[in-house]
């Protein structure tokens, strides 16, 4: 019994920092005007919604990262806790690396890869290259 308790404490002590690190998901909808998307950001930490964070949302393209200066937008708190709303004005469709800069309780920067098309945005699971012939 003691051994297993010890094991448990050790596990807790070395709680993976990742658990403290925030995670985020995006749900974006195309607004009808070219390349503008309304996005709902769900911010979590250790599985729990993370309210009260101030998020600046930017975006960059994988190729030529420094040449696309998308205007960063401050996200507004959404209906439920840990949800935030932001309107993203991108230059073109395709795969974008969405940058969430977190201030407030958690200081961090998250990069999320989403493929934006005429309906909305889908997460890019394997951000591999476009199928090269």
């Amino acid at each position, binding site marked *: 019994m003691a051994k297993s308790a010890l094991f448990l404490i050790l596990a807790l002590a070395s709680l993976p920092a990742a658990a403290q690190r925030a995670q985020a998901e995006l749900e974006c909808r195309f607004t009808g005007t*070219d390349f503008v998307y309304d996005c709902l950001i769900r911010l979590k930490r250790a599985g729990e919604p993370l309210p009260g964070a101030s998020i600046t949302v930017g975006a960059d393209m994988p190729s030529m990262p420094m040449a696309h200066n998308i205007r960063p937008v401050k996200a507004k708190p959404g209906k439920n806790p840990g949800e935030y709303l932001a309107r993203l004005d991108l230059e*073109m*469709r395709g795969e974008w690396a969405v940058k969430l800069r977190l201030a407030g309780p958690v200081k961090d920067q998250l990069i999320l890869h989403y493929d934006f098309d005429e309906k909305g945005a889908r997460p890019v699971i394997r951000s591999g290259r476009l199928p*090269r*012939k």
Partner: protein
Amino acid sequence: MFVDLIQNTLDGLTSGAAYALLAVGFTLIFGVLRRVNLSYGPAIMFGCYAATWFHVHFQGGLLLLAVITIAGTVLAGAYVERLCFAPHRDGSAIAAMVASFALWMQLEELAILAMPKHLYAFPALYEGRPLALGPFSLRVEALLMLLVTVATCVALHRLLYRSRFGLAVRAVIEQPVAAQLAGIDLPGIFVRIFAVASLVGAIAGYLIVSSSEQVTPMLGMWSTLKGMLAMMLGGLGSLPGAVLGGLALGLIEAHSQWFFGPQVRDLTAYLLLFILLALRPSGLWTTTRSAS
């Protein structure tokens, strides 16, 4: 194992055929103008996008789409020639190349704005099942690609060695000053050779998109890189070298992809070019001219 070897060789020759055409187009422009046209691929993409745009709106037949691809490519090629190469004829090669790169950006963004989707279907060159030759299978569109490539090379050879225009082109390639003294109008030859190179590129582009049945904005960069790679492999400025370089690149990629996968395929192609350039700058097919 033996079956794979032959199958890969067949696939390699097919993609090699398209690379050969791209390399020939690049070499025609480089041989005559002594300039690198980075907008060569993007002009082809522009032609293919024009055809796709037409197909999406008006459903064109295969032949009609081919004509539109060629027209679009030749048009884009003429635009590039007028803005990037005509003004720099006696000027610096770097300025012409960077200008052609600037138009690459332009052509690519134009295409993306006109057709924002990331991938467009393109009508297939041939719908049916691949031919079964014993254990090997050869897709009919691959066969068509090889045939059209051979036909294009024969036509080009006839143009260069049987016509007055061809005589002038070869003269300009070999000795531009003497060609002018012989009365050959250099600017006129440049414009027309650009059109011929664009035509060859358009054929290659059409074959590529119709056999892969898809068009992506990456086609511009991809065909520029593959065209230059094949041209350099074969030996700069030599047309037979370009065909050889194209086929060699196709074979190298097919076999290395089979054994090591796509990333190593590209790695092998680039490694070979690097070693070749370091050891034998004039490529497989030795040409007397070095490109300074």
